[in-house]
């Protein structure tokens, strides 16, 4: 993704988080991104292209939230707990706007089948990568355990966003769940 596209879409994410999808207006994106009027309209000629661009960028940023600055997550229970815990912290703090935008888009996807199909492609990419990681970290039931962890993390972020636990330690929480799943070194 080019820098300009990313810059515009990040501004779009913030607008959706603050004002819902109706806040996603090209001229507002220009203003928030600090670029010349008309730039967003030029890059994303239709509303559909802009909404899909924002959804796509949310997935890309979520990948970054899991992997952090390191390109590789260590394939061990601690490595997975660390990566998912870091994801939770970022989702609640620095990347809060990505999280909020995602709920807005998710509700929209439930009403608009065209967006749903698109969102599916991105979600599949995340799944393949994470499934492999969980397997290498010692899970004997990668499908089940990945499903469990992915849903657990999503639910944790969802609950913590509305009702924050003081001094939440998400790495320890995720590690605790993995402990119950009894992974063993491959």
């Amino acid at each position, binding site marked *: 993704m080019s820098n300009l596209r990313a810059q515009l879409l990040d501004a779009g994410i913030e607008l959706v988080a*603050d004002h*819902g999808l*109706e806040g996603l207006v090209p001229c507002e994106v220009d203003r928030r991104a600090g670029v010349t009027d008309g730039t967003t309209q030029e890059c994303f000629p239709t509303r559909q292209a802009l909404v899909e661009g924002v959804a796509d960028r949310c997935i890309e940023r979520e990948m970054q939230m899991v992997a952090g600055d390191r390109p590789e997550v260590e394939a061990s229970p601690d490595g997975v707990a660390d990566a998912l815990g870091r994801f939770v912290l970022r989702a609640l703090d620095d990347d*809060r706007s990505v999280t*909020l935008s995602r*709920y*807005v888009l*998710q*509700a929209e*996807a*439930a009403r608009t089948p065209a967006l*749903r199909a698109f*969102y*599916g492609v991105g*979600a599949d990419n995340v799944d393949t990568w994470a499934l492999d990681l969980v397997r290498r970290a010692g899970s004997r*039931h990668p499908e*089940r*355990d990945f*499903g*469990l962890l*992915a*849903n*657990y*993390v*999503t*639910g*944790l972020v*969802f*609950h913590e*966003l*509305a*009702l924050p636990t003081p001094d939440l330690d998400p790495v320890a*929480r995720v590690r*605790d*769940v993995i402990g*119950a*799943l009894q992974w063993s070194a491959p």
Partner: protein
Amino acid sequence: MTDRRTLLLDAALELVGTQGMRGLTHRAVDAAAGLPPGSTSNHFRTREALVLGIVERFVVRERAMATGPRDEVDPTPEGVAAAFGRFVDRALGPDRMVTLARYAILVETAQHPELRSGMASGADQVDTWALDLVTRAGSPDPQRDLGVLANYVTGLVLHELALPSQDLDAAARIRSVVDSLGWTRVTGS
């Protein structure tokens, strides 16, 4: 028989689910409930009071989604899986509007922390009930396991809403989560 306050709150829930928070006005709730103008204002003076009323109503609606008409759950792994499975099926099907309204309210709560206390007391009521159930069903670590199940169910609904699986068997999925947690059957008494 449903009282007028409940009727208004269910209409408000439906409105928020269909249109998001911007659809929530006192006048729109009157119309959706089929009641005379001013009915909603009589029960809920401010928009905040109305939102808190909806949050309160979630507790009752969500519990009914889990227990079904019998209003009780067998304290066994099968009973817990069936209850949470029923919750997922209803959250994605007949009570879809409750689910969508919940997302909208969540975003609103994240933006307006003054709504948190109402949300917290609702969450406490649900937790007390569910913690007791999970304990009686044989969990060795009820706090952890309720966290796992509650977060799992929320995540599953969120994912399935956008990307439905063909022939989802939610109860079976939840059963496999329960099985992975090593519950032991409580015997006697």
